[in-house]
């Protein structure tokens, strides 16, 4: 077999959002040779997509600048599909590489939680962050009528962003009740900056009414979206629109952590004081350790970066800041807890798995996620359950207990080229 290109680094960081960038900068500053790998063409992750030009994220410019000065090697457009002990197999559109590392930092971020409802597969139904990402990637929305729905602070940010780009945001439907949002505001009292930010977002989206205790129940249309039905429990209203931007807050990307055998508790990667996972030498920072937003991700990334590079004193200096920012995790969880009605939106013929077109009824027949996969092909398509798996966790309380390689769809030739690096046995965790 042809040998695959090998590159060697002291520290490999997977994911170039705020946590990954902060980790890469901290480790590089400490003298380590660092690789920062991301699936996207540019660093920044989802929140800093669009880079330093993102006008409402002054931190983006600072950290992207720090990254470019740090000496870390940014490896763009590249996916990790297999993890050994000490090496990652990575693929880009045109190349394949085995990346040897001394320490590994997982900063794989989060994705939106999507829940099925009738019509959710129609063209022009997007994730909330999904539509924002597409607009940041060049999609014009001038004059488009948009309904923003779901839950989480992202809804406000998306509505503000779309409004400023000329979209006619018809309404923002937040499923959480006003009581929970008030409690959230109180919990953020010690984070005045976050409250100011929220107020600014609301001001920027002020033309769109903000409905609480309101959620989407169906998307209507033939070949594409024509209208959205929303419910506030008392009545259902139908709103004609061009786009629906709908997401139910975030779920961490745990595939790589699980493949490496890192312990996961309550949907989050367990980490030590210095962000080290249950696997020695493997660190984790940002959303996978608990959804807590950018500030927490940055400080966790810095701690992981310093710790991975052996600079424990530098890492220690950040522990108090992290402890303060960690309070956001539980506040978010409580404020945007999903109401039980959301588990009843999908009808028996509503698709749960969008890759394999498996209906709710066909998946629901089975006792577990694994049984549903084996017998119905639910979660077996190209997204590998990244969409329907998280939905099934909420709908059926199924748990995703393992992640099997390849953890990302790859070319057959890339799979065929996998070879063990220094150590003979690949270390892959989880049950078979």
């Amino acid at each position, binding site marked *: 077999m042809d040998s695959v290109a090998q590159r060697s680094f002291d520290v490999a960081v997977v994911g170039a959002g705020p946590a990954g960038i902060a980790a890469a900068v901290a480790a590089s500053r400490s003298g380590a040779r660092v690789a920062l790998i991301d*699936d*996207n*063409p540019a660093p920044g992750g*989802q929140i800093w997509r669009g880079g330093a030009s993102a006008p409402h994220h002054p931190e983006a410019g600072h950290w992207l600048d720090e990254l470019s000065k740090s000496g870390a090697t940014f490896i763009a*457009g590249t996916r990790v599909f297999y993890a050994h002990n000490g090496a990652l197999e990575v693929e880009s*559109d045109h190349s394949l590489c085995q990346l040897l590392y001394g320490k590994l930092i997982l900063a794989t971020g989060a*994705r*939106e939680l*999507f829940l099925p409802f009738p019509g959710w*597969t129609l*063209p*022009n*139904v*997007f*994730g909330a*962050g*999904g*539509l*924002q*990402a*597409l607009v940041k*990637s*060049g*999609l*014009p929305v001038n004059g488009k009528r948009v309904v923003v729905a779901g839950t989480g602070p992202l809804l406000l940010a998306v509505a503000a962003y779309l409004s400023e780009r000329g979209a006619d945001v018809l309404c923002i439907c937040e499923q959480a009740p006003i009581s929970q949002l008030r409690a959230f505001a109180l919990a953020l009292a010690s984070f005045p900056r976050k409250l100011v930010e929220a107020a600014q977002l609301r001001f920027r989206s002020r033309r769109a009414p903000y409905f609480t205790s309101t959620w989407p129940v169906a998307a209507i249309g033939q*070949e*594409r979206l024509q209208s959205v039905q929303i419910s506030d429990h008392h009545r259902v209203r139908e709103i004609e629109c061009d786009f629906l931007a709908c997401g139910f807050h975030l779920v961490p*990307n745990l595939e790589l952590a699980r493949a490496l055998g890192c312990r996961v508790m309550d949907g989050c990667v367990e980490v030590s004081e210095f962000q080290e996972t249950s696997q020695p030498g493997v660190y984790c920072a940002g959303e996978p350790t608990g959804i807590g937003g950018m500030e927490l991700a940055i400080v966790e990334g810095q701690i992981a970066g310093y710790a991975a590079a052996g600079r424990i004193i530098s890492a220690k200096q950040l522990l108090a800041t992290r402890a303060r920012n960690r309070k956001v995790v539980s506040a978010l969880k409580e404020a945007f807890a999903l109401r039980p009605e959301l588990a009843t939106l999908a009808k028996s013929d509503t698709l749960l798995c*969008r*890759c*394999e*077109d498996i209906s709710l009824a066909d998946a629901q027949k089975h006792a577990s996620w694994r049984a549903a996969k084996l017998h119905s092909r639910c979660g077996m*398509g*190209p*997204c590998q359950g*990244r*969409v329907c798996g998280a939905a099934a966790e909420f709908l059926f309380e199924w748990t995703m207990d393992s992640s099997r390689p390849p953890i990302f*769809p790859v070319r057959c030739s890339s799979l065929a080229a996998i070879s063990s690096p220094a150590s003979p046995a690949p270390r892959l965790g989880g049950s078979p």
Partner: protein
Amino acid sequence: MSETLTVRVNGTPVAVSVGSTVAVAVLLSTGVCRASVSGQPRAPFCGMGTCFECRVEINGRSHQRSCQVMCEANMEINAHG
């Protein structure tokens, strides 16, 4: 206005701003990326490379996630809903 470039979606020229992804070119033209396994039209959804709904053929290579690929001048995109 920002600079534009032209790609072809199913043979028809589409102008997009420089820096746009292929998903944007598809949304500005046919609006549909692919037919699902049961024949339903599907279009970009998550916008960030995880859902795989936006798969299209780009310059002869199939199953490319259009939201993760930048448009280049004269790119040939096949999106068949």
